[in-house]
């Protein structure tokens, strides 16, 4: 015998009734109600927390029950008594396991899934889209940040010629286009666009001691192109943005933007290291010691350290921990003896 509230499905008035199991029938009686229905015609709502449960009759009538323990005891041996979901939700061991599983899944997604997925997207991106994307980016930069190069034309031609003689680590001729620009706001810098356009700023040419250092920088940028870092960064940031919006979406858009920023720094650091390894391999193939690039990074670091204002430096190309990268480059053997780690 269980207390319940019966609704006939036609009126909002509830009836206080008692419910009991009678063989394969459910017996409902009280407050003018008297029904006997086979269990097979009834539906019992799944248990969820301590919320009341409902037995629904085929004609739209229903019974609301609140005594969960008694209800479950009554229906234990009937087809209505099944329901594993609530048991999982109310079991702290399963809940703790779910927390751990989701934590591991999230970590695996961020560390492994997103970069792999981004790699796949970057590799399958059609050439035409890459070109359009790059042209639009350069156009945007030209309008807002970059100025015409003031480099001496013969110096520019020399550098272009020297760069054309470069061979990729696998001996092939790298596909790229060298562009000269000036940007006093950015300071010494260079960057690559996904289609192989390498933009060299006058300020960097001025900072470098010799052509070998500049070729090292071009090698570094070609590393970004070779590993498709630009496209991968875009894909990764979009993926992190979507994931964070999904995760925090209900609570706050402010919180949803934070992970993108945090993860971006981590990913771009890995990309810089990868591009450095490619540059080192390329430099060795072309007979230049990788330490030359390291020396330039040291110079760059010294200049920034003196309060060389570079507020927008992180905008285009976050070059983190310059000294650390310089040390890594300088620790490499000067010729092809060591493995560059950038084989295609």
């Amino acid at each position, binding site marked *: 015998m269980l207390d319940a509230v019966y609704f006939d499905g036609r009126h909002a008035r509830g009836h206080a009734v008692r419910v009991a199991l009678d063989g394969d029938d459910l017996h409902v009686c009280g407050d003018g109600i008297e029904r006997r229905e086979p269990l097979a015609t009834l539906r019992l709502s799944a248990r969820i927390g301590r919320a*009341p449960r409902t037995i629904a009759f085929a004609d739209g009538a229903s019974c609301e029950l609140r005594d969960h323990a008694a209800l479950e005891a009554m229906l234990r041996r009937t087809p209505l008594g099944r329901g594993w979901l609530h048991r999982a939700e109310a079991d702290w061991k399963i809940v703790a396991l779910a927390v751990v599983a989701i934590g591991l899944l999230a970590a695996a997604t961020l560390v492994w899934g997103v970069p792999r997925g981004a790699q796949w997207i970057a590799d399958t991106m059609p050439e035409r889209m890459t070109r359009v994307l790059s042209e639009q980016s350069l156009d945007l930069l030209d309008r807002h940040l970059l100025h015409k190069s003031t480099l001496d034309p013969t110096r520019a031609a020399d550098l272009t010629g020297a760069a054309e003689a470069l061979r990729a680590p696998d001996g092939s001729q790298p596909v790229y286009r060298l562009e000269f620009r000036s940007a006093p706001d950015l300071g010494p810098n260079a960057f690559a666009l996904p289609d192989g356009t390498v933009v060299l700023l006058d300020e960097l040419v001025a900072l470098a001691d010799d052509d070998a250092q500049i070729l090292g920088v071009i090698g570094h940028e070609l590393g970004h192109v070779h590993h498709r870092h630009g496209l991968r960064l875009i894909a990764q940031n979009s993926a992190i943005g979507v994931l964070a919006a999904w995760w925090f979406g209900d609570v706050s858009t402010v919180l949803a933007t934070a992970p993108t920023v945090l993860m971006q720094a981590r990913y771009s650091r890995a990309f810089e290291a990868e591009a450095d390894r490619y540059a080192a391999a390329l430099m060795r193939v072309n007979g230049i010691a990788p330490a030359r690039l390291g020396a330039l990074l040291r110079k760059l670091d010294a200049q920034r350290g003196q309060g060389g204002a570079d507020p927008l430096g992180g905008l285009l190309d976050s070059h983190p921990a310059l000294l650390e990268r310089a040390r890594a480059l300088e620790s490499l053997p000067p010729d092809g003896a060591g493995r560059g780690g950038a084989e295609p």
Partner: protein
Amino acid sequence: MDSEPTPAPPVQTEPFRFNGSGGEYFGIWIVNLLLTLVTLGLYSPWAKVRRLQYFYRNTELAGAPFDYHGKPWSILKGRLIALGLLLIYHFATTYLSVWTAVALVLIALVMPWLLRNAFRFRAHYSSYRGLRFSFRGSLAGAYGVFLGYGALMFFTAYLAAPLFHQRLKRYQHGNACFGGSAFSFSAGVGRFYRTYLPFMVGFAVLFALAFLPIIGLSASAKAGGKPDPEAVAAAGFGFLAVFLFGALVLGPLFQAAIQNLIWNHTALGPHRFVSRLSGWRLLGITASNFVLVALTLGLFMPWAAVRVARYRASCTSLQVEGSLDAIVADAGVEVAALGEETAELFDIDIGL
């Protein structure tokens, strides 16, 4: 069931109550999440039904809980269609061509119909005391509200937002029924503007505060000046502070004011709703939720949801004239059931 001692009182205040608890909901939430992830999202309609059932069944009025009967398979179908529309929208706006215009017009034409069906779906699958809710807004009404006033809002730079909101709520609440009893909505456009006004001014000021330094900076950059790093940092920080202030402070205050306005002008037959939400209390709850969710990387979210639901319910009540027992199912309920097949196709959450 009734706490008033006087016999047969003409009007009784019946408060809403939310009985859920954060710890209990955490278990439901995390199991939902795990099953959704493991099934690559296919479980999400079942998760949604379970979440809504938890909140509905734990919400009580006059001693009886609400219930939600949504069918996961229909929700899954609706979500796949919505996903298709989203993809069409995405590609149409990424690669501009004639098809962009065609797709946008198509989506604009389909949207009102979709949203009306979403209202119908949500109402039809909600019940209380064994009776279903229903939504009977006409298709013409939906086009008028979403296309007509929606477009007006867009072209007036949101100055018509209060008008759009009023028309939307009038359409939504004015066409809803519980059993054979109709809801009514009585707030006019003037009241919406009065409630909106301080917030519109507030948001406009915030907008100006956030963007003026950035505009100034880019102007000086264009003039050839080298941007001062401190000014750039200050502008960035200022933008973030203003954005946070808008989202965390003005947001809850606005929500409370609007919810009070809407529910204080909604009635079910002769029974009036009363909403006494305090903006500052809601602000306290949302701000502390924000901090705790951030500190726990999101694990506090179930408690946050329960806290808000409990506070909202505790501030809402129904002034019952006579008795709710008198409400009966409508004879026309069979007609609504026929229309349900199309309504089932779409289930979109509408947070307006």
